[in-house]
């Protein structure tokens, strides 16, 4: 994606001062504290450790934060449309059809008592007026698009009968069949082996560039995000502490990012103590 091309398209997603708060016994606790970014038709990675608020950010875009959590923002717009003001009905239309989400473990996100083929077909029929035969045809097409070798046979399989990598590819097929504009992937490959991870990412890469989709890739794996995405946001304690192009990650400026990069073990480095990240309380305010 060249800068010129991105400038031609209006931003797909605009987020300004996003805040997600939950009531606790000691008052409101904010999981996300003022996150702002725009997304074009590119791959944006959001990286953070547990408790950084990265998953909550992804879910709040789809308005999937359950009450009593509260989502507020100065602006949360998808293709120019205000998501905060949208009615529940409009949100249901957008979810799945225009914005899709892939989650971490297909064991938990696929319905265990339905065949996978039927689930994909149903995902298609929810967002279009197609009949059963047409939906099945599209589902088989989609299974082939995620490089499943025997779509006919896999169509009739149940989720527990397929491997992790295949389950995740089925999840992707199900989410991409309505042809959305934006895909939010929350740790989509964390439960997979490294080689399978690469294959699933290759599928995501191809599908996103073929369809001109935007993607938000939420992960804790800094190296993976740096090699897969175009831009990266680093989150800490609910805030974005660093925003840079993936290729420029090594030149990151914020001490948290530098600390995180330094504490990663590397194959090509000799054994020895890894510098330990010391958390500066000032980062909570940065």
């Amino acid at each position, binding site marked *: 994606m060249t800068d010129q091309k991105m400038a031609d398209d209006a931003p797909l997603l605009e987020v300004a001062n996003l805040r997600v708060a939950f009531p606790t016994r000691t008052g409101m606790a904010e999981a996300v504290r003022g996150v702002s970014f725009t997304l074009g038709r590119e791959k944006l990675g959001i990286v953070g450790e547990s408790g*950084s608020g990265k998953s909550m950010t992804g879910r709040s875009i789809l308005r999937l934060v359950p009450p009593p959590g509260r989502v507020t923002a100065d602006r949360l717009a998808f293709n120019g449309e205000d998501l905060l003001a949208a009615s529940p009905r409009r949100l249901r239309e957008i979810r799945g059809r225009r914005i899709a989400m892939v989650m971490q473990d297909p064991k938990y996100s696929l319905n265990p008592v339905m065949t996978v083929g039927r689930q994909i077909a149903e995902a298609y029929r929810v967002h279009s007026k197609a009949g059963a035969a047409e939906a099945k045809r599209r589902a088989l097409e989609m299974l082939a698009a995620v490089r499943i070798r025997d779509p006919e046979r896999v169509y009739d399989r149940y989720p527990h009968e397929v491997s992790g990598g295949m389950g995740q590819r089925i999840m992707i097929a199900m989410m991409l069949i309505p042809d959305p504009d934006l895909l939010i992937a929350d740790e989509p490959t964390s439960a997979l082996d490294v080689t399978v991870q690469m294959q699933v990412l290759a599928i995501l890469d191809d599908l996103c560039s073929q369809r001109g989709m935007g993607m938000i890739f939420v992960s804790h794996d800094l190296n993976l995000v740096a090699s897969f995405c175009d831009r990266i946001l680093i989150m*800490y*304690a609910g805030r974005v502490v660093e925003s840079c192009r993936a290729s420029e990650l090594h030149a990151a400026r914020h001490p948290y990012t530098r600390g995180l990069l330094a504490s990663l073990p590397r194959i090509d480095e000799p054994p020895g103590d890894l510098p330990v990240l010391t*958390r500066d*309380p000032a980062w909570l305010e940065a």
Partner: protein
Amino acid sequence: MTARTDTPSAPRPAGWRDWLTTDTPQSRAQARLGRAWAGWTAFRRNRLAVAGLLIVLALVVVAALAPVLAPHHPYAQDLNNRLMPPSAAHWLGTDAFGRDILSRLIHGARLTLMIVALVAATAPLAGLIIGTVAGYFGGWVDTVLMRITDIALAFPKLILALAFVAALGPGIENAVIAIAITSWPPYARIARAETLTVRRSDFISAARLQGASSLRIILGHIMPLCVASLIVRTTLDMAGVILTAAGLGFLGLGAQPPLPEWGAMIASGRQYVLEQWWVAAMPGFAIFIVSLGFNLLGDGLRDVLDPKGD
């Protein structure tokens, strides 16, 4: 996301509330009490559960202080005042022998409490032992114990209790034994289910890797995790136990006259229920309130003790 330091909190905790809620307890006792306190504050937030607890506590207090609280002697007959409606002299009226119903109810609370306590002390314990042993060892031990449990479960509780009482002779002690003997199977099932869930956990593997014997693992690791479900189930079952005892009393197989057992009181009031409704209705209300109290308490305990919420 601030790191936890490992120096103890600097100023000394002020007051017992801080002592209980500190996150650096200094002794086993402090840690345990702190945990109990956390459980109590969670429980306290549920008003209905507190109401249930108050009812149960009231039962205990009434039973303990029965001779002091009762205005009349429960066996004192006054045949001139038979079947009198509630009045200033007899707040809940009198029964067929002129005995004060309120006093009989108060003394009957002792019997109810005794029944409840005896069953609660025996049946869940038996069920816990059988269930954990079956669940932990698996194999033929599990099969044998569970088939015995299935057979015991297949008998309707009341009929089996009737059979025991018929064999052992009527009387409140035998009724309690009969109820306890027939109540343990559900507890065994619950304990076994919990054991199966926990059996493959890493902390059990770690205990085995230290050379812990099966007995140590069952007693120290598995049973504490089953206790929460069992407490909840026992509390909820208490209502049923009271009703079963009342049923046996109603059939004349539990408490014998003149014992003021609530079920027996309903039985003797049966024939007057149209004209002198209070003779049967008052003990009925008592049973209703106490059963309700146990149910509310049990629901509240479940919300607090649910191990998956940890």
